[in-house]
């Protein structure tokens, strides 16, 4: 499972990454979280609002800083 957090580096993207790490720890998942900060790359996913969460190249959320619980639900759905 490859998880990406999309965001140009503002505080929200950092928060999303931290929350994702927490969620993964709780689920016991060991996976790579890649932070994508380049605008071009972010836009190539079709994302207009950051931060966004991408699981295995599928955009599962955008424009929101998800809480760890919500991320856990998404991770389950997309296993």
């Amino acid at each position, binding site marked *: 499972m490859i998880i990406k957090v999309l965001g140009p580096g503002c505080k929200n993207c950092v928060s999303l990454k931290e929350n994702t790490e927490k969620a993964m720890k709780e689920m016991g998942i060991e996976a790579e979280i890649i932070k994508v900060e380049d605008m*071009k790359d972010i836009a190539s996913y079709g*994302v*207009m609002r*950051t931060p966004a969460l991408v699981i295995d190249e599928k*955009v599962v959320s955008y424009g929101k800083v998800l809480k760890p619980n919500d991320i856990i639900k998404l991770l389950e759905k997309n296993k």
Partner: protein
Amino acid sequence: MVVFSWLNRQLLKMEWLFELIRLLVEKIFGLSIDERLGGSIHFFIYDFIKIFILLSVLIFTISYIQSYFPPERTKKILGRLNGLPANILGAFLGTVTPFCSCSSIPIFIGFTSAGLPLGVTFSFLISSPLVDLASIILLASIFNWKTAIAYVVVGLLLAVVSGTVISKLKLEKHVEPYVYGNKSLDIEQEEMTIRDRVEFSKEQVKDIIKRVWKYIIIGVGIGAAIHNYIPELLITAVLGQDKWYSVLIAAFVGIPMYADIFGTLPIAEALIAKNVGLGTVLTFMMGVTALSLPSMIMLKQVLKPRLLWTFIGLVSAGIIIIGYIFNAIGYMFI
């Protein structure tokens, strides 16, 4: 009408707050507000609190409304139209769509990839920072509704005209190629519940205040200094109504600057009190919000030089023209 006027005075101009702070300064600090020090302190505290209260209430309410207009929806709505109506709608939607300036590039790319005409995207991008629901109400609070409405109308006109001119100039090939041909994101974000919207609005209030409070302090500080320390003669020498160059100076100072519109309001307020023309002040405010060095640097990533400079030139020229017009007709508003 009387009720409206009272509401206006208490809720927007916060006369009660003015009086309260006056009492604070006069009775507790022992300073007269008609004197320099007392006047500045009074202005500083009153304006600061007023802006903060208005800001919080406004941002919350408006974010709630804006939660119904995410950029993704705007993209869908605009994708179905063409020509001038699309530009006009783009300008209107730019006003109500929430986004921070860090999103302007992804939004630009998103809209353009979806096939929206360049001019429409620009109308949206110009009106977005310029005309803001919350700042309209703040303008009405600081000046009056006539001025606020005038600002909105010219702001939207500027956005629509600039966008239309850009379409006519057919500068599509001056967009960086990677912008085209991105896939459009069509995942359905679940409909927000009322609780989601309230949560969103609260977050927006926290976020925006965190981002903006420094500019407000600086703006109120400068406003206070202008109000009471910088001699009126100096201000009118540089920015006076009768000086032909005042609009140009306001433009040169405002355009490269970056500040949130809420920070410019106390400065605008103080300048008007010192007899600076309404047009000069509007030019300054529009220059600060519509264009800035940081945003131009970001746009440089997606626009080739010719388009970038056309955009900057058009908006600057528009802002300056608006300044001259409003200096001439300003007496009708203030």
